[in-house]
C-alpha cells in the first residue's frame, strides 16, 4: 500500500503503547522474576543478593514440590485423555445428522462460559462424600439412590495414591531391571487429582467437541463415499481417513488444554485446596502460597520460572509452526 511518511510515523506511534506495555509487563517482568529466583529475597524485605541456582536446587529437593510435579503431570495426562476422548465421541455423534443438534451442542459447551471458581464450588458440593454417621452426600448419595452404592468413595478427601506396589510382581521386575523408582508413590495418581480432572473435563470437554466438530464438518462427504465405494468398512474409514485428517486439530487441542492444565490454579483453590498430604496441590498453588502468604519471594519466583519453562516447551514450537504455516498460505 502507498504510504506517506508522516503516516508511517503515526502507525508506529499508535502501536507503541502496546509494544511498550508488552516489553515491560511481559518480557521485563519475566526477567525480573527470573532475577528474583536467583536472589536471597526470602522474607518481606527485598534482598537482591545473587545466590546462583541454589533456590532451584532446594526447590527440586522439596518434597511438596516433587508431589506437585507428580500431580501436574498426572492431572495433565488424565485431563487430556478424557477431554480428547469425550470431545471426539460427542463431535462424532453430533455429526450423524441428528435432530436438535443446536440444543445438544449448547448443553455440552455451556460450562465453558462459567468460571473455574463456580465450577469448583459446585463440584466440591457434588463430590463431598459424607460420613458414616451423617450418611452419604452428593454423588455418593445419588449412587446409593439408584442402587450403585458400591461406587461410593471418598473422592478428593481420600488421600490414597495409586501406584505400582514395590512388592508386587511388576514392582519386583522393575526393581530387577533397575527401574525400581517407577514403583513408588511419587510416580502415581492421587484420588484427589482424579476428582479435579472430573470437574475440569466437565468444563473443557465441550471445547474439544467444538473443535473436532468443526474439523469433521470440513471433511467432504465425497471422500467418505469414495472410500465406501472402494469397499472400505466404517471402521477403516474412521482409522484410515477421518482420524489422520483430524490430526492437526488433536495437536491444537493438546496444546491449548495442556497449557491450561499446567497453569491450573483457580479450580484447586475453590474445590479442594492443597489436600491431605498435598494430594491435590499443584505448582501454581504452591507458588501463590509461598509467595503471598509465606513471603518467600525467591522460592515463589523459582516455581514461576519452572512453570514458564514447562509452558514454553509446549507453546513455542507450536507458535513457530502456526506462524510459519500461516506464512505459507
Amino acid at each position, binding site marked *: 500500500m502507498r504510504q506517506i511518511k508522516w503516516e508511517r510515523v503515526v502507525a*508506529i506511534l499508535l502501536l507503541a503503547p502496546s509494544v511498550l506495555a508488552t516489553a515491560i509487563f511481559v518480557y521485563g*517482568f519475566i526477567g525480573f522474576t527470573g532475577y528474583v529466583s536467583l536472589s536471597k529475597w526470602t522474607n518481606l524485605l527485598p534482598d537482591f543478593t545473587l545466590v546462583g541456582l541454589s533456590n532451584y536446587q532446594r526447590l527440586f529437593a522439596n518434597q511438596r514440590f516433587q508431589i506437585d510435579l507428580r500431580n501436574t503431570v498426572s492431572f495433565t495426562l488424565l485431563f487430556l485423555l478424557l477431554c480428547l476422548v469425550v470431545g471426539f465421541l460427542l463431535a462424532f455423534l453430533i455429526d450423524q445428522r441428528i435432530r436438535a443438534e443446536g440444543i445438544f451442542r449448547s448443553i455440552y459447551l455451556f460450562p465453558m462460559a462459567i468460571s473455574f*471458581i463456580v465450577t469448583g464450588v459446585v463440584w466440591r458440593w457434588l463430590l463431598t462424600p459424607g460420613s458414616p454417621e451423617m450418611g452419604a452426600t452428593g454423588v455418593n448419595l445419588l449412587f446409593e439412590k439408584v442402587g450403585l452404592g458400591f461406587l461410593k468413595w471418598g473422592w478428593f478427601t481420600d488421600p490414597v495414591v495409586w501406584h505400582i506396589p514395590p512388592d508386587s510382581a511388576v514392582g519386583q521386575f522393575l526393581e530387577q531391571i533397575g527401574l525400581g523408582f517407577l514403583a513408588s508413590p511419587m510416580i502415581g495418581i492421587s484420588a484427589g487429582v482424579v476428582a479435579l480432572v472430573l470437574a475440569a473435563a466437565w468444563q473443557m470437554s465441550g471445547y474439544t467437541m467444538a473443535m473436532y466438530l468443526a474439523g469433521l464438518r470440513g471433511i467432504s462427504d465425497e471422500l467418505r463415499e469414495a472410500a465406501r465405494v472402494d469397499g472400505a468398512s466404517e471402521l477403516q474409514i474412521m482409522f484410515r481417513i477421518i482420524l489422520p485428517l483430524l490430526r492437526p486439530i488433536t495437536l491444537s487441542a493438546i496444546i491449548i488444554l495442556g497449557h491450561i492444565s499446567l497453569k491450573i490454579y483457580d479450580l484447586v483453590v475453590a474445590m479442594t485446596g492443597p489436600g491431605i498430604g498435598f494430594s491435590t496441590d499443584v505448582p501454581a498453588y504452591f507458588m501463590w502460597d509461598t509467595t503471598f502468604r509465606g513471603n518467600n519471594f525467591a522460592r515463589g519466583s523459582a516455581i514461576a520460572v519452572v512453570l514458564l519453562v514447562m509452558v*514454553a516447551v509446549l507453546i513455542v514450537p507450536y507458535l513457530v509452526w502456526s506462524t510459519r504455516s500461516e506464512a505459507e498460505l
Partner: protein
Amino acid sequence: MTSQSSEMRGGTTYVPRWRRALLYLTLIAFAVAYLIPVYLLIITGMKSFTEVSLQTMWDLPSGIHFDSFTKAWFGSKQEGFQGLGGNFLNSVYLAIPATILSALLGSINGYILSKWKFRGADLLFTLLLFGMFIPYQSILIPLVQVMSRIPWFGGNLYSTIPGLIFVHVIYGIPITTLIFRNYYAAIPTELVEASRIDGASIFGVYRYILFPLSIPGFVVVMIWQFTSIWNDFLFAVTITNNPDVQPITVGLNNLAGSYIVEWNVQMAGALMAALPTLLVYIVLGRFFMRGLLAGSLKG
C-alpha cells in the same frame, strides 16, 4: 452453518433403527451428566432454609424460595459475613470498562499490523502473542510491586478497580490484537487502496472503512474479553486485598470457604457469579462459538 450442512449431507445411507436409538440415548445420557451440576445448583439455591438437609439434597424444592439469594446478596450481620452484592457490582464496574478499552486497543493494533505493515511487523506480532500463553505466576511478583508504585488519586493503583482494569487491558493485548488482525486481514486491501486514492488518511481509512466493517469483530472480542475478565480469579485475588473492591470470583471463593455459610447460600452465590456470562452465552452463543474458534490459539 450447522443445520444447513447437515441437511445438505442428504441421508442416502440406510441406518438401522436400533442404531439411531442408541445414538440418541448416548447423546441424552451425556446431556444429563453435563446438566447434573446445574440441576443441583438451581434446586439448592431455591430451597428455603428449613428444607436444606443433606439427605434430601437431590430432591426438588417445595416451591421457589428466594431466601438464599437475598442472603447471598446482602449477607448476614448476625452470622457475620458480607454478601456478594458489592462484589457483583465491582465485577460490573471492572468488566465493562476493561472490555471496551481492550477491544478498542486490540482493534487499533490489528489495523496497524494488518494494513500498515512495516519491516518486522510479523515478528513483533509473534512477540506480542507470546504474552497470552505465559503462566501469569511468572509476572505476579513484579506486577504487585509496580502497581503499588503507580500513583493514583493520592494513593496507588494496588487494590483498586482501575488498577485491575489496567491489568486486564494490558494482558488482553495479545488475544484482542490476534482476533482483530485476523479479522482485518480478511478485508480486501483494494477497499483500503480505493479510499486512499480518494484522499483518506490513516485515520480516515480506519474511521470510514474498517471501523464500520468491524462490528462483528468487536462483538467476538468483547464477548471473549468480558467472559475472561468476569471469570478471572488470579489477578483479582493478587491485586486486591480489600473486600470492598474485590470482584465476585474472590467474594464467592471467600463465601464458599467459610464454614458458617449454608450450602444453599453458597449455591445461590455461585449462580449469581455464573449468571452474567451464562446469559451472554445463551443470547450471543453463535458469536461465542466464533470467538472460541478464532481464539483457538488461546485457552
